[in-house]
C-alpha cells in the first residue's frame, strides 16, 4: 500500500505549549481521508504545516515519499488546498484570480480554468469580482482553484462550512468524483461527522492535538452495528426463550439493568414480543438501538476529560 502523506511524531508548540503533539498520520494514495475533531483540536495547524505555512517544532512530514522542507517547492506544486476559509483578491474577477494562481503555480494550460469552474458548477461568473460572491460560491471557487492544477493531494479545511444542504450534497458528490475518477487523494477536515462519514475511506480523529484514532470506515462501521434492546423483569427466562425458542445466539444479558441486547437481525421486534407474550414474560420496553457513529465519535472526541 503506498502512502501519499505520512507524518512522524509531528509536533507544534507555541511558547512551549503543544497544540499538536506526536501526530502519526497515514494517508493512502487515492483515498478520502476524513480528519475529524472539534474546533481548536489542531486540524488547521496540521494542515498548515503540510502546506508550508507553519513550521513544525518537531517531527517530520513525508509527502509522496519525500521529506517535506520549507523549500520543497516541487512537492508544494503537487498539492492543492483551502486552509481555514477561501481567500481571494476580492477586487479582482474570479477568472483573474484563477489566472494569477496558475501563473504562480507555473501551470500554463489555458483550458484548465473553464474546466475547473465547470466541475464545481460555477458558470457565467468569470468576470464577476470575488467580493460579490456568496460564501458558498467562494468555497466552490476555492475548490476550483485547488483542483485547477490537477494536484495529487487535495487538502481541504472544512470545505462545506457555510453551505446549504443542497450545496453540501453537490460538493460531496464532487469529492467522490475527484477521488474515484481523477484519482486525487483528499484530506478533508471537519468538526461534523455527518459531513464526511459518507465519503471518507479512512477517518483520523484528533482531540486536543493528539490523534486518538485512525481507522478505515469499514472497520469502524462493522464494530458499531445496530441492536435491539429488550427490558424484561425475568431476564433469565427471557434469555432461555431467546435461545431455545427463537434460536438466537448473538445476544447479551445485562443483569443489573434487566436488559438484553440482541444483535441478531433476522427477527423483527414483533417476533420477539410474541415469543415473550407466549411465555408470559413481562416486557418493560423494547426498542431498536442504533449506536450511530455520531455517538461513537462524540464519545471519543467530546466525552471527555474524565478518561483522557
Amino acid at each position, binding site marked *: 500500500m503506498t502512502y501519499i502523506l505520512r507524518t512522524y511524531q509531528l509536533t507544534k508548540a507555541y511558547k512551549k505549549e503543544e497544540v499538536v503533539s506526536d501526530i502519526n498520520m497515514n494517508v493512502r494514495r487515492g483515498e478520502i481521508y476524513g480528519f475529524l475533531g472539534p474546533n481548536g483540536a489542531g486540524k488547521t495547524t496540521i494542515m*498548515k504545516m503540510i*502546506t*508550508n*505555512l*507553519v*513550521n513544525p517544532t518537531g517531527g517530520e512530514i513525508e509527502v509522496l515519499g519525500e521529506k517535506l522542507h520549507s*523549500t520543497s*517547492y*516541487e512537492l*508544494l*506544486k503537487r498539492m492543492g*488546498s483551502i*486552509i481555514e476559509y477561501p*481567500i*481571494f*483578491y*476580492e*477586487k*479582482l474577477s474570479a477568472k483573474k484570480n484563477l489566472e*494569477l*494562481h496558475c*501563473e*504562480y*503555480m*507555473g501551470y500554463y494550460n489555458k483550458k484548465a480554468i473553464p474546466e475547473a469552474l465547470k466541475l464545481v458548477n460555477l458558470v457565467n461568473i468569470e468576470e464577476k469580482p470575488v467580493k460579490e460572491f456568496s460564501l458558498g460560491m467562494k468555497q466552490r471557487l476555492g475548490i476550483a482553484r485547488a483542483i485547477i492544477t490537477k494536484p495529487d493531494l487535495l487538502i481541504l479545511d472544512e470545505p462545506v462550512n457555510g453551505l446549504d444542504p443542497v450545496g453540501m450534497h453537490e460538493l460531496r458528490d464532487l469529492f467522490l468524483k475527484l477521488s474515484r475518477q481523477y484519482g486525487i487523494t483528499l484530506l478533508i477536515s471537519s468538526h461534523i461527522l455527518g459531513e464526511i462519514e459518507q465519503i471518507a475511506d479512512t477517518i483520523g480523529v484528533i482531540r486536543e492535538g493528539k490523534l486518538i484514532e485512525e481507522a478505515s470506515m469499514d472497520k469502524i462501521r462493522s464494530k458499531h452495528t445496530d441492536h435491539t434492546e429488550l427490558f424484561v423483569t425475568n431476564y433469565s427466562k427471557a434469555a432461555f426463550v431467546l435461545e431455545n425458542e427463537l434460536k438466537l445466539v448473538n445476544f447479551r444479558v445485562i443483569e443489573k439493568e434487566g436488559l438484553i441486547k440482541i444483535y441478531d437481525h433476522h427477527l423483527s421486534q414483533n417476533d420477539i414480543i410474541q415469543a415473550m407474550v407466549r411465555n408470559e414474560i413481562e416486557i418493560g420496553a423494547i426498542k431498536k438501538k442504533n449506536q450511530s457513529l455520531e455517538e461513537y465519535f462524540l464519545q471519543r472526541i467530546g466525552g471527555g476529560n474524565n478518561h483522557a
Partner: protein
Amino acid sequence: MLNLIKLEIRRMNSGSVLLNFMLINVGIIGILLLLGLDSEAATEFLASPEDVMRLIELLVVAAFVINASVLLSNLIIEEFKNKTILVLFMYPINRKKLLLAKVLVISMLTFLFVIMSEIIVFSSFSAINNMYAPITVPLPTDLLADKIIHLIVTAVACAGMSLIPLFFGMIKYSVPATITSSILIIAILSSSFESGIGANLFSYTIIPIMLGIIGFVVANLVISRVVKRDF
C-alpha cells in the same frame, strides 16, 4: 524574479497608479502657479533658478514618498491584513522572493516617478514661466541637464526612504500607520529651520542618502522576519 515582478504589476491597479502620478504632477504645477499671486514676494525667497529647482524637488519628493506609502499599503500591508498573503505563501515560491518582488516594484516606481515628475514639472513650469512669467526668475531648461546627477541620487534616496514606513505598518498590519509615518518622515525632512527654502534637512545630501540606506535595511529586516514566521 522578473516574472514575480510582472505578476505584482499585473495584480495592482496600474490605471489608478498612473492616474495618481498624473494628478500629483498637475497638483505640484498648480502649487507653483500660486507663486504668481505675488511674484514680488515669491522672488524674495526664490532668488535664483536653483532655488526654484529645490522647491520643485522638495514638493516632488514629498509627494512621491507619501505616494509610495500608499503603494506599500496596497501591495504589502493589505495583503497581510486580508490574509491574501497566505495564498501567495502556499505557492511553490520562496517567500523571500515574493516579498522582494513587492518591495522592488515600489522602490522602482518611486525612483521612476521622482525623476519623471521632476522633469515634467520643471519643464512645464519653465514653459509657463517663459510665456506668462508668474515669477520673475528666468528658468532655463538646460538647468535640468546640469543637475541630472543630483536628481538621480535624490531619486535613489527616495526609493530607499519610501520603504521606512513598512517598519511601522507591519507592526500591526496597519494602513494608517504606514501612511502617517511617511508623512512624518517628510515633515521632519522638509521643514525649514531657517528662513528661505534652502535650509532644511533634505538639503544636506547626506541625510536623504542615509535615510535611503535605512529604508533598504528596514525592508530587509521586515522580509527576513516574515520569512520565518508562522501564519
